[in-house]
């Protein structure tokens, strides 16, 4: 019997998702027993032409991690989509945009300007930027196009399943692969994780007051948190109430608040808005000024609430004033 073929690919992400596959440790052998890895550039020597040579739909599944920022990532996502029966958005970046998605707070131009000219570690030079095409004696060299914004995988290609997390917990990877091999996958579009908030599986939930009120928000470096009490009750911004469970709460176990990498539950459209709502409602103050004072202690609200999901959010990115201000343009 031929084993089902699978592919792994890495787009705009840190590589931690690839590490998560390796974290399967000896279980990766069990995976290799039941599937054939047809493409995994980070670990095995494959070329794009190997994928191109496959028949459409020949891959049983592609696990794609990372957001989409460049033309190369877009092309690979499209190629793997064509060749795969099932595409799994692997990890927070592929599902929601992830940390690289925070680049949507800056314009493409300001990013290139900083990286190639403004950054203190960039030597004063001629401000040369990489070109997409360069002619050399050996021929024409090409670099991928750096797109205007960061996209989630499903904003670029059709996605069948989502594995949440930064990176996805090993347990969830294992059960996803098992479900795939056994043909037990749920309804298309499902997130392959429990559909309840992290508080439901948090070991500290018993210490969460029924009517939790926060008088002052504090940041992890400003205090040593008491190791068994609900972190929200201690004034830390823990996003457990708004975040999907399934991670086993390792951050909580390390005495650090949840930052929301597992994304929203299925009832939520915009993770950041919901997380903001959950946290804001905890403020004890009732007067406008007092409420504002407590909330201004929350440094960087976008980075706090949309840390992993800005490209998937309703607003998608920061409004660019220089273009938005050019009123009376092409369309009215």
């Amino acid at each position, binding site marked *: 019997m031929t084993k089902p073929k699978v592919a792994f690919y890495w787009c705009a992400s840190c590589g931690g998702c690839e590490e998560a596959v390796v974290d399967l440790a000896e279980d990766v052998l069990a995976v290799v027993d039941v599937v054939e890895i047809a493409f995994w550039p980070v670990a095995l020597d494959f070329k794009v032409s190997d994928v191109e040579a496959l028949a459409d739909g020949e891959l049983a599944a592609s696990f794609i991690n990372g957001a989409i920022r460049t033309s190369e990532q877009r092309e690979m996502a499209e190629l793997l989509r064509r060749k795969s029966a099932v595409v799994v958005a692997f990890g927070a970046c592929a599902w929601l945009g992830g940390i690289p998605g925070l680049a949507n707070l800056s314009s493409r131009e300001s990013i290139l300007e900083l990286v190639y000219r403004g950054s203190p570690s960039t030597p004063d030079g001629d401000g040369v930027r990489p070109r997409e095409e360069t002619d050399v004696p050996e021929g024409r060299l090409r670099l991928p196009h750096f797109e205007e914004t960061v996209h989630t995988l499903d904003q*670029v290609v059709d996605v069948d399943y989502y594995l949440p997390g930064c990176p996805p917990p090993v347990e969830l990877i294992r059960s996803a692969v098992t479900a795939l091999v056994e043909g037990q996958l749920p309804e298309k579009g499902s997130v392959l994780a429990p559909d309840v908030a992290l508080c439901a599986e948090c070991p500290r939930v018993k210490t969460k007051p029924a009517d939790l009120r926060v008088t002052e928000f504090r940041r992890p470096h400003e205090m040593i948190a008491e190791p068994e009490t609900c972190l929200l009750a201690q004034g830390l911004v823990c996003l457990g109430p708004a975040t999907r469970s399934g991670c086993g709460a390792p951050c909580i176990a390390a005495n650090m608040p949840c930052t929301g990498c597992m994304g929203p539950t299925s009832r939520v459209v915009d993770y950041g808005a919901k997380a903001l709502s959950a946290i804001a*409602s905890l403020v004890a103050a009732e007067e406008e000024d007092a409420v504002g004072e407590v909330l201004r202690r929350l440094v960087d609200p976008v980075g706090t609430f949309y840390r992993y999901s800005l490209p998937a959010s*309703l607003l998608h990115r920061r409004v660019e004033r220089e273009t938005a201000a050019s009123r009376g343009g092409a369309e009215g």
Partner: protein
Amino acid sequence: MSEPRFEPRIVAFFCTWCTYTAADLAGISRMQYAPNVRAIRLMCSGRVDPQFVLAAFRDGADGVLIGGCHPGDCHYQQGNYNALRRFELLRLMLSDFGIEEGRLRLEWISAAEGDKVQRVCNEMTEQVRALGPLRLVRGPRRRPRGTSGQAEAERGPGAVEEAELAPVLEMGGREAR
């Protein structure tokens, strides 16, 4: 020929007990005010999920107005306080998104204050008119299931797209607390 005056679109979420009743009163009393405000009646200003505000901006609103009962007057005791808390944080966050402060406003308007509805709607319409259109660069939509993986063209700044209503209002909106 002069350019037509920009008419902002303002979505207003009014609580049924106070502000919506006040808007009714303004109507019955024949008070005239800017027609730019589209009122949506909710049971309580505390029901205004920040997702609703973002969805309004995403789908073409230039401003969003939230109206609720005065502090201490909430029909449900606490709803307007929660509205205030979410509004304050949302306002801080929207500035990081490059959305000007004047585009989101919270007002306490009791059922007797039809004149305040008139004044606030007029004021906000002029304020948002001065700011100009919001012109969000719309994010690409999650593609409908079963479509091919063809490249979606990069949206140009201010590209006008067919509005697709996010299923935000259909959601249970259950607060995960």
